[in-house]
């Protein structure tokens, strides 16, 4: 149990396994030669090549639409849901389990279920169905983040607001939402990140047309012809975006109220 060198070795191996592939990917995206076998010098030319690839630009644009819209919708619904569960605690217990289910259900199951559902209702598929599908699981994550914040929420400030003459709407607008805003923004950023790199559900609910291809789907299509340096560059950009959004989300949720 107290074999420290062994513990550190295991830790090192685990971290190496996790991060060496990512480091290699990032390094190769800057490799001038473009071959994974030899480093021929630093270059940004693969990033430049991305700009000239219309398919990639189109997919990136689609991904942003899906991520921003689904994150926005999930944030509004998830926040309202979290407040609803918290204020109606007794009736909220079973509701809570139902809401958090999409976090646990395997993506592939959710993907097939949503595909069957959309087919059954004969909904024409495209970006809007991906957005709807992403709202389903993002809702659960936003709700979980806001709920965590509500656990330490001092409800007497809501009563104080009413006592000082504010209506329920004014109290939500000026007191509840601003106090919860770090958690709400954190939830939105988390939802955005999850949506950006989500593949399976988007793949199943995108429909047949090429018009609704998202970035992960585009990468998957390209990778069938081998890993190109362009893909490395694209993956590095997606990685950068996700890490930034997640770091921001964590910082906000820990740091409490902005400006303090």
């Amino acid at each position, binding site marked *: 149990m107290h074999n420290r060198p062994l513990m550190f070795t295991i830790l090192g191996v685990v971290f190496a396994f996790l991060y060496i592939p990512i480091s290699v990917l990032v390094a190769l995206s800057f490799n001038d030669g473009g071959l994974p076998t030899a480093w021929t010098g630093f270059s940004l030319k693969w990033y430049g090549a991305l700009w000239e690839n219309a398919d990639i630009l189109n997919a990136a644009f689609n991904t942003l639409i899906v991520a921003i819209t689904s994150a926005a919708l999930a944030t509004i619904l998830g926040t309202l849901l979290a407040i609803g569960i918290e204020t109606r605690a007794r009736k909220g217990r079973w509701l809570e389990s139902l809401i958090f289910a999409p976090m646990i259900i395997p993506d592939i199951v959710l993907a097939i279920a949503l595909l069957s559902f959309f087919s059954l209702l004969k909904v024409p598929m495209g970006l809007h169905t991906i957005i709807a599908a992403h709202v389903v699981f993002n809702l659960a994550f936003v709700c979980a983040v806001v709920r965590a914040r509500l656990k330490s929420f*001092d409800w*007497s*400030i809501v*009563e*104080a*607001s*009413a*006592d*000082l*003459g*504010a*209506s329920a709407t*004014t109290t939500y607008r*000026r*007191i509840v939402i*601003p*106090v919860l*805003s770090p958690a709400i923004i954190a939830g939105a950023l988390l939802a955005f990140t999850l949506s950006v790199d989500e593949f399976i559900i988007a793949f199943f609910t995108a429909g047949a047309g090429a018009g609704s291809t998202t970035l992960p789907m585009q990468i998957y299509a390209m990778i069938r012809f081998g890993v190109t340096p362009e893909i490395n560059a694209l993956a590095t950009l997606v990685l950068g975006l996700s890490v930034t959004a997640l770091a921001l989300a964590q910082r906000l949720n820990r740091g409490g*109220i902005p*400006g*303090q």
Partner: protein
Amino acid sequence: MTPLLQIRHISKAFGTILAVGDLSLDVAENEFYALLGASGSGKTTLLRMLAGFETPTNGQILLDGKDISTTPPNKRPVNLMFQSYALFPHMTVRANIAYGLEMEHLPRPQITARVDDILGVIELTPYADRKPDQLSGGQKQRVALARALVKRPRVLLLDEPLGALDKKLRGAMQLELKRLQHEVGITFIVVTHDQEEALVMADRIAILKDGKLLQSGPPREVYEHPINRFAADFIGVMNFFPGVADSTGLLATDGTRITAASTTHGPAVAAVRPERIRLGSGENTLTGTVTALAYHGLDLHLYVQTTAAPKPVIIRLTADMSEVQSLSHGDPVTFSWSAKDTRIFPA
């Protein structure tokens, strides 16, 4: 003249639990009124009904003669200072205080003038742009008070206003609250479990027990003439001697005769305040042994075990009296008090 606030036969039940039961009391204009009770006495429920956060199950609350029992909190000319202060954490001191005036849609210059004015009164002008978590407990308490006062309510309700402060600050704030109440001319109703606080601050006190009004009156009356054993025990310190009462006093369980004016017959207790007892013989004389001496600076509390009472008798003496200085643990001591300072309550 009709009282400002009339509480008439008010009850509040939570399920099968009766928090307040058929309670009536009146509060006059400009009065400093204290609702005193232990936890579970219903005092907080009563306060929440006055603020509008609870609706009475039965009875009425009349303010200026109008029934406000079912008026929502944001429509009542009544403000509550919360025990937890409930300051808005994302707003500055100034914004916290201005909030209630903004809800009245007053013109901006008028809001600014009134906020600046009250900041001066509570002496927090230099802290106006701070957030609540950058303030000390005492400063938060003053902001909470200012936020409620700036609305110029007909009645200001205060829920354990000094509960979160340390002892020294509490003493200073008791006088400060009383001074402020005179200055602004607003009726204060304060809920407290601290009987000393109620005695110091209030013009009138209501003692609540199990959701019912036990006794109400000015502090001196409540202190000097408690109506029953519970009220006597709750306010201040009281020594009790159990026994059997007749028209001339009480026969204690050990056979000691205590002389007092009495209207009670049968099982009863004789009660006397610690400050009414002197050393030496007198009308009612007892002897015992010193079990403890508690030095309080100016005062000294002497605990004397006698055969007449199960608990040691507490005697409050001035600490620099020569006969007190020679006393120590285990010494025999004789003490006495007059018949007129003795009260007899049914047991």
